[in-house]
């Protein structure tokens, strides 16, 4: 366990930034968002950034290759840039869990080397949640906001910040910062954890019947008439999927440059009518089907294929951002609730 006076945090951040690219949530005009550290930036204490931390490994837009056309010749150009080592500082427990969920998709065979590459270069410093929003429900997915995973976990206790390395990478990072860090006692952290856990238990979203989303119930859930009502107001925008830390669908597209083609991938949303154009059209014709797909994926398909791990981390972003306030909690209550 290491610690540092909060007043010295800027020094610590500078020290990290001196060695590696450092990203951290910073308060902005419209809430907190991750940005590359610049001298003077202060760590946001907001429990949730607008965009999730998945951007670091699975950015919204990523170039894959380019084709240069000269006359009648076509040349293929590798646009891949080896990523520099970087540190993400202050990731909340929900977002940290999302990395595991993404890993199971992108690092499974065949490995997505773009993703893998970014993953390998990253060191994640997580931060325990001291002031969750009423829309937070990560605990429902057995995520411990008071004791987040990551390469290094951090807690703010009083005017001190405590760090605990959880992986080799984490240890390396902490040891590289040895000069600035003092040894810390784990007792205050343990006490803080208890305190934070108590807060978690007070959060309003608690009756969560996710146990009923078993693979064997797939057809029953799929055919549930409640989907019609749930999806009736859905606008078909991609807000929920884009703010979601675990949504991992992408489209690969060609952009016509002045001398050829740039092939890139970008996030796609299963909520879109032009998602996955199989044989010219989206097989999910109605918004009901598209809406159902998203939640069935998170709650049934994904756990069925991934040892029962749900594709939701309870970060609550979709609750806050959906233009019509339709979200996974309402879905769970309506679809899963029946079994209870």
């Amino acid at each position, binding site marked *: 366990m290491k610690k540092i006076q909060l007043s010295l945090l800027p020094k610590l951040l500078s020290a990290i930034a001196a060695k590696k690219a450092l990203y951290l949530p910073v308060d902005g005009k419209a809430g907190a968002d991750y940005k590359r550290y610049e001298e003077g930036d202060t760590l946001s204490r907001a429990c949730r950034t607008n965009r999730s931390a998945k951007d670091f490994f699975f950015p919204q837009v990523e170039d894959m290759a380019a084709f240069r*056309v000269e*006359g*009648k010749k076509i040349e293929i150009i590798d646009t891949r840039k080896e990523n520099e080592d970087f540190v993400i500082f202050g990731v909340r427990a929900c977002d940290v869990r999302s990395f595991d969920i993404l890993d199971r998709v992108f690092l499974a065979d065949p490995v997505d080397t773009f993703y893998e590459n970014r993953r390998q270069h990253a060191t994640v410093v997580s931060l325990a949640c001291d002031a969750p929003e009423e829309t937070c429900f990560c605990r429902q997915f057995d995520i411990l906001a008071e004791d987040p995973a990551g390469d290094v976990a951090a807690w703010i206790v009083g005017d001190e910040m405590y760090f605990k390395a959880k992986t080799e990478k984490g240890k390396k990072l902490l040891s590289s910062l040895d000069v600035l860090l003092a040894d810390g006692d784990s007792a205050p952290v343990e006490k803080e954890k208890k305190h934070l856990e108590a807060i978690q238990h007070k959060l309003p979203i608690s009756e969560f019947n996710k146990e009923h989303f078993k693979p064997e119930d797939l057809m029953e859930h799929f055919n549930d008439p409640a989907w019609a009502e749930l999806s009736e107001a859905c606008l078909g925008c991609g807000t929920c999927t884009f703010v979601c830390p675990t949504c991992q669908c992408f489209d690969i597209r060609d952009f*016509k440059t*002045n*001398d050829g083609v740039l092939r890139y991938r970008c996030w796609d949303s299963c909520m879109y009518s032009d998602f996955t154009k199989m044989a010219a*059209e*989206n097989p999910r*014709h*109605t918004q009901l089907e598209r809406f159902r797909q998203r939640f069935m994926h998170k709650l049934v398909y994904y756990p069925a294929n991934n040892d029962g791990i749900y594709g939701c981390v309870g970060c609550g972003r979709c609750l806050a951002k959906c233009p019509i306030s339709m979200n996974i909690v309402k879905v769970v209550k309506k679809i899963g609730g029946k079994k209870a």
Partner: protein
Amino acid sequence: MQRIGVFVCWCGSNIAATVDVKAVAEALGKEPGVVYFEDYQYMCSEEGQTKLQNAIRDYKLTGAVVCSCSPRMHEATFRKAAAKAGVNSFMVEIANIREQCSWIHKNKEEATEKAIILGRAAIAKVHLNAPLTAGESPVTKRALVIGGGIAGIQTALDIADAGFEVDIVEKKPTIGGKMSQIDKTFPTLDCAACILTPKMVEVAQNEKIRIFSYSEVDKVQGFVGNFSVSIRRKARFVDEVKCTGCGLCTEKCPQKKVPNEFNLGLDQRRAIYIPFAQAVPKVATIDPDYCTMLKTGKCGVCSKICTAGAIDYKQKDSFIEEKYGAIVVATGFNPIELNKYDEFAYSQSPDVITSLEFERITNAAGPTGGTLLRPSDGEHPKKIVFVQCVGSREDGSGCGKTYCSKICCMYTAKHAMLTREKYPDTEVYVFYIDVRTPGKSFDEFYRRAVEEYGVHYIKGMVGKVIPQGKKLMVRASDLIDRKQLLIDADLVVLAAAIEPDKSARPLATMLTASMDTNDFFTEAHPKLRPVESPTAGIFLSGCCQGPKDIPETVSQASACAAKVIGLLCRDKLTGNPCVAHSDELMCNGCSTCEKVCPYGAITYQDKEFRMPDRTMRTRRVASVNPAVCQGCGACTVACPSGAMDLHGFSNSQIMAEVDAICK
């Protein structure tokens, strides 16, 4: 993928001198899809066209790019040639490397580079071109002539002679126009009435011609070959069929104080009138602004004396709907208003008159019976000053016109000469900027005026005319003798500029025909298509297109008739396939496109569609009538969903050109 051939024209040295045509051909030959390239001295020549056709056959081309002069010049030529070789006309695009490249750039390197880029843009467009086939529409074999002056008369007669029906719409009670007001015509000095009135009679008697006098065009719809026109027949309060033209009413009408417009207000007529003795139709007209009966309901003299019972005070404007294949505009001209020319004292002294007023004063049928008398006191003027270019050839800053009115030099010479001939004791001065006399026997005519008739021609402008007692003091400068002159004239005659008739502008809007800044109708081509408007089916006759004298007007009128006959001879017209079309699957049916369409080419219908989820749905969608659409593209931009696109100038084609240029 298209198989494109590129043909670079040298245009002799017009292109080749500033553009490295070989380099252009080679560079474009490297473009994707280009399977053949060639450069040649004159692509538009028979030999050049054969080269294009051979390449199409030998290399199985699906499209071609010709880098040459403006598409406005030879696009049609190359498209026709390609069509003959089996490639759809619309698969040929022109890169304009002459007017928009070689002729405006001096640096060969720069011009060559630009030519290549223009070529690339054309290639990019051809890649997205699709064969287009023009639709066909029938032709209504009847022509409408708007305006019954000498231009309209001649055009109507020629068309009728070819066997087609013609209607003349004339806003005045009689046809005849300005020529009927003129006394003698230059350069032959024959009497205008003597040559015009027989033609007017001919029109009246021609079975193929209908005259709608005292009428105006109210609404025009449709397109070339298929116009439908609504004609307003203004109430003349006299039954045209019953009226025998005896003229008794025009003598007995108690309302005598109506300015006679035929004599330009120099004398007065009655409230019921026939403009002049040879009017066609010779039918009386009641002037509602002056008729006591119509204004107060008390009088009815004309009705009482008319033995034919032709008077009808209750007559109302009526409308005639008729279909036409072609419309001829022959709306003519007017002298400009001179109220703003204070320096010439036009509005201050009745003895300052316009040339047209002079015509009436010297006309045997005019207010003075043809004797030259001053309007003010009826005395013989002994000293007359003619001022030319009043309101013509100005710099554009004043109230006048920038153009030359063309006819003033000649008619002023005529006036001067006739005055001197009839009244040798009269001194005649003519002030001019230049004397312009191009035309058969024109210069000889002018020289006779100077040499034989002793007219004083003075180069210089009149600065001011000051009425002083019975005299008009004319202050002017003589630019040749470099001196100031002061002439005590009895009469000043102003050669006022001529301008298109005021009715032309709203008519142009109805016809969707374009006009220049002076309100003269524009030709489809100033040299090669001078009697056609750019709007298909609209033809131009006479001064509505630009100032003209009588011989020129008549020849243009006949040329115009020839064009109309050429159109009416055809049974079917092939349309322009570059028209808008709506992708019904994208269309919202929101009616936005309809609102910006100037031709009313867009309508909406409810159609059944099979939706992606396999249900059927009725949707309101736009549909474009390709025969009515003229292909402007206004709708394509108004449409937010992009459902509306334009054949031949599609969104993707234009963007491909943009891409190629900005590379």
